[in-house]
């Protein structure tokens, strides 16, 4: 229970369905960051308030150390290698549906439940009924074993109905903003977060076509392919020179150079193929493969040949380290990490 409306309603539904429910707040992160107070203590109090009103047991499980080791350190090393990892996917794989799951099983639970928008159909992960809220992009790496002991109580509900149900049952918290994944990603930019752990290292921004130096940056690791904002070009932030903004198309980590372009048609950006690593494929029999390249992104038809995803039409290349998630209809088959 995060203190948010989704997990609160989930707990309530389980209680109503007759389960013996224990609410657990997972403490994964508590550190304040520049310009952002980590809301963990308030979230914890909100979660506990809901548990008390439902009349269920409530516990706090502290995974702060493990979260740092398995999610944050992974993230930092990926960024240092020039990639753009997704901490939510890692958190689900390593913490929520692994450590939390294992501890719950040890404690004698039959199931774990979360407030994710996703379904489980015949033991397979599937997209939520509320397509606008579907979170399977973040869940594709969780194990089959965890899935077989997981309940998503709001799997078939629409977000507005979840909110309404919360209100009707006095579970809504009028003062609460919607929580977004891990606490630091939502509120501070990733760059601010990284700066806490990685020293700035000034370097050049070059135009990819001409090699001309057009500005300077604070360290190539802080920039993501496709990024347009926060580029110090000609002394101005995100300056529009000739009608078109520069955006990041390439990084040279060794020389600490960020390459930018104004050419939106650059073949660095538009590709037919993506190489993947660490592929998970839960069913080799695929009827109609579609692929999602970001959370709630368009479902793009593709074929998987070995470790290569092939697209009929060119796609805008996602940053390395992001995930491509596979679907067959509404079933989530797995996915891989983009090289």
């Amino acid at each position, binding site marked *: 229970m995060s203190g948010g409306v989704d997990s609160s309603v989930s707990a309530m539904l389980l209680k109503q369905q007759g389960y013996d429910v224990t609410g657990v707040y997972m403490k994964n992160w508590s550190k304040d960051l520049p310009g952002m107070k980590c809301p963990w203590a308030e979230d914890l*109090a909100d979660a506990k*308030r809901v548990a*008390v009103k439902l009349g269920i047991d409530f516990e706090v499980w502290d995974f702060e150390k493990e979260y740092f080791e398995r999610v944050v350190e992974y993230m930092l090393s990926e960024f240092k290698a020039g990639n753009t990892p997704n901490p939510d996917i890692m958190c689900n794989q390593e913490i929520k549906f692994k450590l939390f799951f294992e501890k719950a099983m040890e404690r004698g639970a039959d199931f774990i439940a979360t407030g994710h928008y996703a379904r489980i159909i015949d033991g397979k992960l599937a997209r939520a009924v509320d397509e606008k809220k579907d979170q399977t992009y973040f869940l594709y790496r969780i194990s089959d074993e965890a899935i077989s002991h997981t309940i998503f109580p709001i799997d078939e509900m629409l977000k507005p109905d979840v909110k309404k149900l919360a209100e009707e049952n006095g579970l809504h918290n009028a003062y609460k903003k919607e929580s977004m994944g891990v606490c630091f990603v939502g509120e501070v930019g990733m760059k601010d977060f990284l700066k806490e752990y990685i020293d700035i290292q000034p370097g050049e921004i070059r135009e990819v076509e001409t090699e001309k130096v057009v500005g300077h940056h604070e360290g190539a690791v802080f920039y993501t392919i496709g990024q347009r904002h926060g580029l110090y070009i000609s002394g101005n932030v995100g300056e529009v020179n000739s009608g078109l903004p520069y955006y990041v198309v390439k990084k040279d980590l060794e020389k600490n150079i960020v390459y930018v372009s104004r050419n939106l048609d650059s073949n660095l950006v538009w590709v037919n193929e993506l190489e993947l690593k660490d592929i998970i494929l839960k069913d080799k029999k695929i009827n109609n493969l579609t692929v999602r390249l970001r959370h709630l992104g368009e479902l793009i038809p593709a074929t998987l040949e070995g470790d290569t995803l092939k697209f009929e039409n060119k796609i805008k290349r996602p940053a390395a380290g992001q995930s491509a998630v596979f679907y067959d209809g509404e079933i989530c088959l797995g996915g891989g990490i983009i090289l």
Partner: protein
Amino acid sequence: MIYLDHAAATPVNKKALEAMRPYFDEDFFNPSAAYLPAKKVAHEYEEAKGVIAHAIGAKANDLVITAGATEANNLAFSAVLDGRVLYLATEHDSVRKVAEQYSGEAIEVDKNGRIDLNDLKAKITDDVILISVALANNELGTIQPLSEIASLIREVRLNRLSRGVKRPLYLHSDASQAMNLLNVNVARLGVDLLTLNSAKVYGPKGVGALYVSHDVKLKPASYGGGQEQGLRSGTENVPGVIGFAKAVEEATKHLNGNRKKYAELKKILLSELKDYELVNKKHSLDNFIVLCYNGIDAERLIFLLEDKGVYVSTGAACAANKGAKSHVLAAIGLSDSEINGSLRLTLGETNDEEQIHEAARLINEAVTLEKSRG
């Protein structure tokens, strides 16, 4: 609403609110400006400081107005130029955390939360320059024997002088919780530094004061225009101090009546509540009631009672929010499960007898509900 958390915050006294009002718009002048209307504001500001000072037996110039008690506590520790500090194990974090910056060492308390004077004696070595002991504790309401501590300190000072040891020894006390419940007089208490807090005495939040005796040299909290005897530069918070003064005046006027009222309400509560252990049995402020329901998670009671419009607390409001166990209750020797089951009720001017009967009933009901959950 039945508000039983007056140690966390108090509503601003109506008369104080009225007194403040003109200083936001009509009499908004900067007290440092040269023209007469500004001089008038400066004068009224000084008078208000005088009222606050008078209530503790001091003069306006002995007070440094701050933005609350935390800042006053921090400023008090700037007396430490070299040397160590001692503080009571049960101090508020605004003392504990500062003391940690000055190699602070904690003095033990007994099971009632009172200072262990032998432990204090043993710990006052020649390198100690400041000792900080709150007049009344913020979680238990325990009143400390400040004048006894002060006379002990006087002996140490004399002894130091006789041996040619130059380091001074100061006594600081945070009187935030006590000012409207006890007669506070700096000479009688024997303190060199005393922290006051407007927000706990029905004055506005964000205003406090540090009484500084003439012997103590402090390092300024901020540099600038030289306000507050040069110790805290910055344009004066005129409405805040006017409101603080009025609140203090009212508190002094009603001190005895209120104490009697709280003692009576406390008696009613304790007789009507069921199945509890009283934690703060002795030496406690009249309005503090700390109950222990061993085996129950008292934080759950907060949420159950909140639904019924009854507002209570498990300890310091700041600690309660962070899931950290109370260092105060640990210091008086409570077990983890007893700490978990402890509920703090603090009475105040918003309460009457009818409310207290109702509160007792609702608390009993919540406790029964939690117990039945098993």
